[in-house]
């Protein structure tokens, strides 16, 4: 599971891609203890999906799967996750749409699953970035679950704890460990599950009184989604495969400015937290349409001041 040192590599010492696998085992142990003591309960289909995704990740880390193979397996894992009953069954008033027909709901949920899982995978290009952004996501989601779901609220500390342990090694030059595809795909799938939980109309989400659910979810994942969309558009514009690995991501821009991995990751983390806070504050004052427009302006300012 050693990560080869290539031209695109940022490391000069041997490093393993075992971080995700270690996280998966940590999660399994925590879940086992939690389940035995009655403190944690997650839908079995969701658990099965996480296991499948972890397996796909391990396969990719060991054998470098082709993206078509990965895509097919991810779709399969997504379908398994949808069996849990958690899916995006409503647009919550966006475009004037509330409840969705079942087939549309399944299709959109599957699309979101693939996007979220792969966006986490794509931003895992510098030390700490995917993990720090995931930590932010899980801390906010933990707050949501603490109000609405006793059976799942302890999932967050389990994942966050595993991430903190991993981060200590991620920045260690002597014993460097990467998330690997196992970790980034696993984190992506867990995030996708919680997004489905949040967007499911029957879930009680405490932020409903303050901001629109879809906006809340998008702002939680603003960096992975924006970066993935940007990279995708640029590659298509350049008539390249949208799945090809390159250095056009926003975090690479920061590295090219001579900023260290640590500083780049923290800069992006703080930027994404600021976007969430600004979105939250704007939602208190303005209607959704105005909030979104002002957020676009804020994102443009961030882009030109931080990344340009």
């Amino acid at each position: 599971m050693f990560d080869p040192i290539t031209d695109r590599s940022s490391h000069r010492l041997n490093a393993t891609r075992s971080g995700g696998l270690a996280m998966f085992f940590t999660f399994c142990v925590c879940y086992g203890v939690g389940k035995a003591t009655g403190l944690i309960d997650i839908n079995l289909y969701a658990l099965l999906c996480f296991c499948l995704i972890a397996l796909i990740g391990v396969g990719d880390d060991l054998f470098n799967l082709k993206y078509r193979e990965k895509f097919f397996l991810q779709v399969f894992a997504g379908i398994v996750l949808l069996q849990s009953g958690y899916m995006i069954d409503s647009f919550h008033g966006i475009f004037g749409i509330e409840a969705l027909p079942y087939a549309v709901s399944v299709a959109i949920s599957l699309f979101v699953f693939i996007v979220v899982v792969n966006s986490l995978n794509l931003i895992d290009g510098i030390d700490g970035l995917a993990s720090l952004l995931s930590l932010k996501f899980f801390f906010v989601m933990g707050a949501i679950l603490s109000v609405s779901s006793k059976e799942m609220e302890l999932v967050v500390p389990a994942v966050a704890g595993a991430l903190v342990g991993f981060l200590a090694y991620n920045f260690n030059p002597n014993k460097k460990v990467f998330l690997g595809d196992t970790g980034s795909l696993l984190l992506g799938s867990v995030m996708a599950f919680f997004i489905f939980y949040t967007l499911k109309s029957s879930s009680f989400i405490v932020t409903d009184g303050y901001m629109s659910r879809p906006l809340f979810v998008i702002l939680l994942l603003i960096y992975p989604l924006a970066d993935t969309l940007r990279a995708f558009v640029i590659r298509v514009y350049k008539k390249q495969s949208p799945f090809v690995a390159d250095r056009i991501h926003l975090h690479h821009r920061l590295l090219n400015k001579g900023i260290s991995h640590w500083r780049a990751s923290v800069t992006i983390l703080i930027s994404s937290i600021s976007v969430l806070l600004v979105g939250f504050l704007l939602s208190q004052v303005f209607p959704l349409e105005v909030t979104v427009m002002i957020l676009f302006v804020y994102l443009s300012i961030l882009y030109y001041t931080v990344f340009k």
Partner: protein
Amino acid sequence: MIRLLFVLFCFLAFSQEEKRIVSEKVQEGLKKVVLAELIPLNQKALSNEEVSRRLIGDDFLIVNGPGNYFNILTKSGYFLGNSKTKVFNFFRYKNPLPSEFLSLQTSATTSLQALVPLTVSSESQRSQFNQRRVYLLYPGGGLLYEFFNGSINRVDSSFAQRNQYAGAFFSYKNQLYLLGGYGFWKTKSILTKFNFNSGDWEYIQTKGVAPDGISNPIFTMKENSLYLFDFFERPQNQSPIKNPNLYSLNMETLTWKKGGLINPSFIGEKNTSGDRFFNINGNVLVNKMESPRVFEIDLDNNKIKKYADNFLLYKSGGKSIVKNGIIISSVRNTSNNTNSITYYDLSDIDKSVISEEYFIRGSISFVNYLIGGGIALIIILIFLWLSNDRVSKSYFVSSNSLFNSLNQINLDPDEAKVILLFTKKEIIPNKEILVLFEEKGKTKDFATKRKNKTIESLNKRFKRVFGKNIIVKEKDELDSRLTNYALNNKINLFEK
């Protein structure tokens, strides 16, 4: 005389039937009740104490009635009581009790107490229901009886389904519903509606994520939604689990919604089949059997008030109703197996408030968690920053390169020799470095120039790649005429 003989005959036939199904002890109690009721009471008003003396054992029900009136149903007849005057009259049922009343097969040894009573009230006199009708549901669902106009009649054409024990029996828009319940070794969350035309119970499809099962819920109807909480789930062949969430079922859209986690100080209390709850002015008054506590739940303001159970509601075994702001309850005296009908004016309840808390976790818990999460994130970042600061000082030297986790520079043999010295100690006198460059037949000046050139080149390349000098020239602290070379204090060198 003929009348007396007829009554005696009825009594003997009744008691023979009872022998097959009730225990010795309860049978004894029932006999006493029936004997007592042989005395024609229709003309005589009974005091509260007299009625209390007649309610022996468990087999009676207190149900609502019109106006200030309420009823206490027994097997042989019913007491019509006035909550203001506290005076009763006894009446026999106009029709014989349905035969199923005598063959109830529940964990209870007697029948009436096992029935789930539901008083249906409606403002519209034209509607199907009015306040005088009380519906009684057979345990497990299916059989439905109506207590109306002095008799109990079966109104369904169904059968004893035994699929929805301890479900939520409620009415909505003049229709009767039964939600959830326990049956065939697991709890259900199904919704069934009674069809008054066909006499059957119909399954109603709901949307959204329902609980895994609903057993012994506390429920209340608010606007179009039924709110449920404090119930058990019991998946197939597993032990029952208390569901800690508030749920609501919108009866218009038939959609389930989760409403948040209930305060653990409330949900932590044990729930038994004897727990009782009342809907009062939009709030729910809950009495727990396990402890002398009464809770008032205000769903609109997300508050829960805890009261001392001064009126011994917990001793009522669930036999209690609220009538015009008064709790009418039977308090069991276990020493002589009798029951006293007691009244408690709810306007006095505020005097016994113990505490007031939130009912479901809401915004405050959310914000607290976020603050805690934010602090944790800052601590993690500080820890990583300190770790990263240490890491950023670490450089490694091999025989031909100098590198850290991010970058590297190649070293020529002279540079490697100098750098390797600094892996052993941080300050090296000039003469020690000079030795490395001395060659036979060459002047000392030559060695000095080579040394200076090597260190200068190394610093230049190192600064270009890593942004700082690696070797700093400084004067000796003891003798300022001597020169030392020191490793930049922001660098830790390790030999690889």
